[in-house]
Structure formats: structure tokens, C-alpha cells
């Protein structure tokens, strides 16, 4: 298919699957996806709350025993079966296709609210210059900026100062997505990621020169060894690593499907995993140095000013910006970093959905992107720049991002390991082209340790969320937008997997058949094929 015919046809498929033009661009894009808002606003507080310096031990254990093995599992599925999440799982086994659609639907929900946070951060980069929050950062954020309603619900009272930056975020993202894997995603990450690192390093250096920075670092790194006896601390480490690396929700499956056949999967994955953790350590230093300054300036202990998430970004940091020398620079660097980190992650989340529709319907890149992203942007722009947007965001994030991904990941590892017995096949695939070879230990980790850890975390999540109404919201609100939404994604995934793959779909395209034949020549055997099982 030529470019001209593709554009004439509008929905015609390109001749070959898009590929990252180099391994470096894949690594940059994968790091861009992994390094998100959580690295900056979640890790420092999670580490501080769970033993400070001692948290390093469970964190490293979780990284090596769960994070990296799961990352390699995603890479092996995406790369071996060369497809978006639904197509890759469908090629692995017909029965596994709903897992792929479940991941796509999770990404859909995350995408619609993620843009709102990026928009807030963009506005706060500007507010840092004017210091619009005055003396009351908390009151400004919830009342003056978001105009938050007293009661959680579904309102269509729009807040223009949120709507327009969100619209801008969506326009920028859609332009990048339409341009494709090489001209859009790769280029955006190649520019944004280095910029993010440079900005954050400057922020960290500036924070280290603030009064009280050493008190903050002292609080952050002082180990509480007793915490290591608490199973909750270990669960926090596994949970954090799991969310931080963007594993098990389709992103790494999709990105690795764009790699060339002979690519060092594990070697690249190691760089991605350690770069993600390296950024988190940097964020911990920068954030706690700044919190140390806040503690000294306010005369409070560090544990009284330490916070994470929205509280850290939109309440604590504006306070620091107001009081620190060259605070405006600090604010622009911090909120600019949030915007860039969020943007590269949003791109990767959307790519999961775009690629799924492209594969299922055989559409061109441009058609699939526009048909998928414009409705998502509209839903996002209807639901989140409103006076109840933050409540909806909070509940969606808690139930779909945290609870839903855990459940989906647990089902995935059980189906792939115990259900289909595909780990030996995927291990061989990883080892065929990679420099860091996987042994039986990888299979034990993915098929044994990871499900146990995920199961423990999932039971904890269910108990926590069942014991009381989340965030004190009304039961109907958590029922519809929390439990209801999480359950609807599973039903939706099963229904989507029942839709047959049409003639134009990528299920049996010639390029994959060629790839498959080459893999089989190299020794790949489908352990679920009837003649092999017999």
C-alpha cells in the first residue's frame, strides 16, 4: 500500500507494521512512558512513609523480583506476537484476547483523567510566576482554581481555567499521535525526555541549596529498620514498582511490538527499569530537599509537611515556591517537569488504544488515531474540567488504575503461566535475541512470586475499599464510578473479544506470517498447538 493510496482510501492499512527506527528511540519512549507523575509525586512519599532509607531494600527486591521480570514478560509477548495488546494476546491464544481488551479499557479510563492533571500542572507553571495562590495554596487549589463542589457527584458546571489547558493538552497529544510511531512518539520522547531530565536536575540542584535541605534529606534517607518486619512495607514496595514501570496494562506490549525482530529485549529492558528507578531517586532527593526547606521555614517537623500526590504537587510545592529564593524558577521547573513526564506517559497510554483499533479494524494510522483520540478527548473534556472533576478523577484512579490494574495483572500472569503454560516459550523468545539471558528463575518469579505478591496486594485493596466508603464519597458515587467502572471494564473486554477479526484486520497479515515463519525456523514452538499438545 502506497502513501497515496492509503491517504485516498482513508482507512486502508499501511503495508508494513510501524517500527522504532532505532533501539535508542524505543528505550527513550519506554522510559518516557515509565517516568510519569508517580515518579515525582508518589515515590518520595511512599519511600519516606515506609522506612525511609530502609525502604531501599524492599524496593530493590521488588524491582529485581517482580518489576523487571514482569517488564520482560510484557516485552516477550509484544515482541513475539507483534501486535497491540488484544492482537498479541489473541495470537498467544484465542482465550487470552479479553486480557488485551481489559488492558485497552483500563488505558482508556486513565487517559481521560490523566490529561486533567497535566493541564493543572501546566497552569501551575504559569501560576508559579505570578504566585497566584497567595498565602493559602490549599484554598486556592480547591476553591479558586478547581471550584470544587462540596459534594461528590456528576456536574457539568465547567471551569474554564481547567477546560482550556486541557483542550491544549489534547491538541498537542493528538498531533503527536497522528504523526505515528517514528515521526510522532519517537520524536516527542527524544525531545521531551532529555528536557525533563535537564529541568529536573536543575530543580534538584536548586533545592539542595535551600536552607533546611539537609534536614529533608536526613528524614528521607534515615532508615527505620523495624519497618522491614512489616508486610505492608513490602507490599508498598511491590505495589510502587509495579505501577511505576507501566507493566501489565498493555503499554510495554504495544511498544515492544514496534521493535525489529532482532532486538536486545532484556538488555534494553534493564536500561528502562534502572533509568526509571534512577529518576525516582533523583525525585526523592529534589522533593525532600524542598520539603526540608518548607519544614525549616514553617517551623514544623518534616513529617508534618511531607505529603504525596496532589497534596504535594498543588499544596506543598506552591507554598515552597512562595517562600524559596528564586521560587518562580523552582515552580516552573517542578510543574514543567510534571507536564513533560505526564505528556510522555499519556502518549504511551493512548498508543495502547490506537494500536488496538488499528489492528482490529485494519485502519491507517491517521484514521485510527483520529477516530480513537477525538472521542476520548471529548469525554475527557466533558467530565473533568468541571466542579466535580477532581472527585471523579480520585475515584477512577483508585478503582481503575490501582485496583483494576492489579486484578488485570494477576489474571494475566496466572493465564500466561499456569493457564497456557507459555512461560518456557516466552523465555526462549527472550533468550534468542537478548544479551541478558533468562533462566528458570525468571519463570519461577513470573509464575510464582509475582502472582503471590499481586494476590496479596489485591486482597489488601479489596479489604481496604470494602471496609469504608472511599474518600468519604457517597456510596452510589463509588458504586458507579468505582466498583461499577472496574467491573464494566471486564464485561466490556469480554464483549470486545467476541467481535470477530475481519478480513482487513491484522490478525493474519502477511508480514506477521513471514515473521512467524522466521521464528519457527529459529526454534519457536507453540505449546498450545493441537499437534504439539498431542
Amino acid at each position: 500500500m502506497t502513501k497515496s493510496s492509503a491517504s485516498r482510501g482513508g482507512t486502508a492499512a499501511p503495508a508494513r507494521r510501524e517500527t522504532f527506527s532505532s533501539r535508542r528511540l524505543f528505550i527513550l519512549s519506554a522510559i518516557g512512558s515509565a517516568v510519569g507523575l508517580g515518579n515525582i509525586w508518589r515515590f518520595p512519599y511512599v519511600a519516606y512513609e515506609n522506612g525511609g532509607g530502609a525502604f531501599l531494600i524492599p524496593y530493590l527486591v521488588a524491582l529485581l523480583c517482580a518489576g523487571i521480570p514482569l517488564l520482560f514478560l510484557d516485552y516477550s509477548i509484544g515482541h513475539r506476537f507483534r501486535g497491540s495488546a488484544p492482537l498479541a494476546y489473541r495470537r498467544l491464544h484465542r482465550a487470552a484476547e479479553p486480557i488485551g481488551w481489559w488492558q485497552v479499557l483500563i488505558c482508556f479510563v486513565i487517559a481521560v483523567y490523566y490529561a486533567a492533571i497535566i493541564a493543572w500542572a501546566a497552569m501551575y507553571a504559569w501560576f508559579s510566576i505570578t504566585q497566584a495562590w497567595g498565602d493559602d495554596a490549599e484554598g486556592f487549589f480547591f476553591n479558586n482554581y478547581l471550584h470544587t463542589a462540596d459534594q461528590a457527584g456528576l456536574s457539568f458546571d465547567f471551569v474554564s481555567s481547567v477546560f482550556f489547558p486541557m483542550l491544549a493538552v489534547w491538541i498537542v497529544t493528538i498531533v503527536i499521535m497522528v504523526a505515528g510511531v517514528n515521526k510522532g512518539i519517537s520524536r516527542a520522547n527524544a525531545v521531551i525526555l532529555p528536557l525533563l531530565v535537564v529541568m529536573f536536575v536543575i530543580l534538584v540542584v536548586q533545592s539542595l541549596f535551600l536552607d533546611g535541605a539537609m534536614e529533608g534529606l536526613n528524614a528521607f534517607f534515615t532508615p527505620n529498620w523495624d519497618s522491614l518486619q512489616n508486610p505492608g512495607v513490602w507490599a508498598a514496595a511491590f505495589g510502587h514498582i509495579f505501577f511505576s514501570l507501566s507493566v501489565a496494562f498493555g503499554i510495554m506490549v504495544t511498544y515492544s511490538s514496534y521493535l525489529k525482530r532482532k532486538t536486545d529485549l532484556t538488555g534494553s529492558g534493564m536500561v528502562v527499569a534502572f533509568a526509571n528507578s534512577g529518576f525516582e531517586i533523583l525525585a526523592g532527593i529534589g522533593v525532600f530537599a524542598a520539603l526540608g526547606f518548607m519544614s525549616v521555614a514553617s517551623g514544623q517537623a518534616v513529617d508534618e509537611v511531607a505529603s504525596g500526590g496532589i497534596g504535594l504537587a498543588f499544596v506543598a510545592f506552591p507554598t515552597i515556591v512562595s517562600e524559596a529564593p528564586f521560587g518562580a524558577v523552582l515552580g516552573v521547573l517542578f510543574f514543567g517537569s510534571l507536564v513533560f513526564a505526564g505528556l510522555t506517559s499519556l502518549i504511551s497510554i493512548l498508543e495502547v488504544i490506537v494500536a488496538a483499533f488499528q489492528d482490529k479494524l485494519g485502519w491507517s494510522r491517521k484514521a485510527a488515531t483520529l477516530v480513537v483520540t477525538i472521542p476520548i478527548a471529548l469525554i475527557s473534556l466533558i467530565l473533568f474540567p468541571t466542579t466535580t472533576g477532581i472527585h471523579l478523577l480520585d475515584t477512577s484512579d483508585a478503582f481503575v488504575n490501582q485496583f483494576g490494574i492489579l486484578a488485570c495483572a494477576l489474571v494475566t500472569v496466572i493465564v500466561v503461566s499456569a493457564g497456557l503454560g507459555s512461560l518456557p516459550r516466552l523465555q526462549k523468545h527472550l533468550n534468542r535475541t537478548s544479551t541478558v539471558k533468562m533462566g528458570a528463575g525468571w519463570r519461577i518469579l513470573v509464575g510464582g512470586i509475582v502472582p503471590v505478591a499481586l494476590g496479596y496486594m489485591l486482597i489488601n485493596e479489596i479489604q481496604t475499599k470494602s471496609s469504608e466508603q472511599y474518600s468519604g464519597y457517597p456510596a452510589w458515587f463509588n458504586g458507579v464510578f468505582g466498583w461499577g467502572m472496574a467491573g464494566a471494564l471486564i464485561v466490556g473486554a469480554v464483549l470486545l473479544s467476541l467481535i470477530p477479526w475481519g478480513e482487513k484486520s491484522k490478525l493474519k497479515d502477511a508480514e506477521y506470517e513471514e515473521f512467524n515463519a522466521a521464528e519457527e525456523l529459529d526454534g519457536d514452538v507453540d505449546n498450545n498447538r493441537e499437534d504439539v499438545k498431542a
Partner: protein
Amino acid sequence: MTPIAITMMIIAMVTIWGGLGLAMWNLARHPEDEDELPTPEEMPHEL
């Protein structure tokens, strides 16, 4: 900062950033297979 906090900070930096350095060094020792790089003709039309 207390000596134990400094020690833990150094261990964290050396482990994580050292791990990143090692991973990058390993990758640099195994450059991409040039035969696998797509020629301009093979690059897919994305639009």
C-alpha cells in the same frame, strides 16, 4: 545529615545509578544488528 542517612543515600545512588550505568554499558557492548535497521524504502508510511 546523620552518618547512617548519608550511608543509605550513597548506597541508593550507587545501586540504582550504578545499575543504570551497568545496563547501558552492557547495551553499548552489543550494538544493534545493522542488518536489522530498516532502509528508507522499508520504512512504513505512517500517514
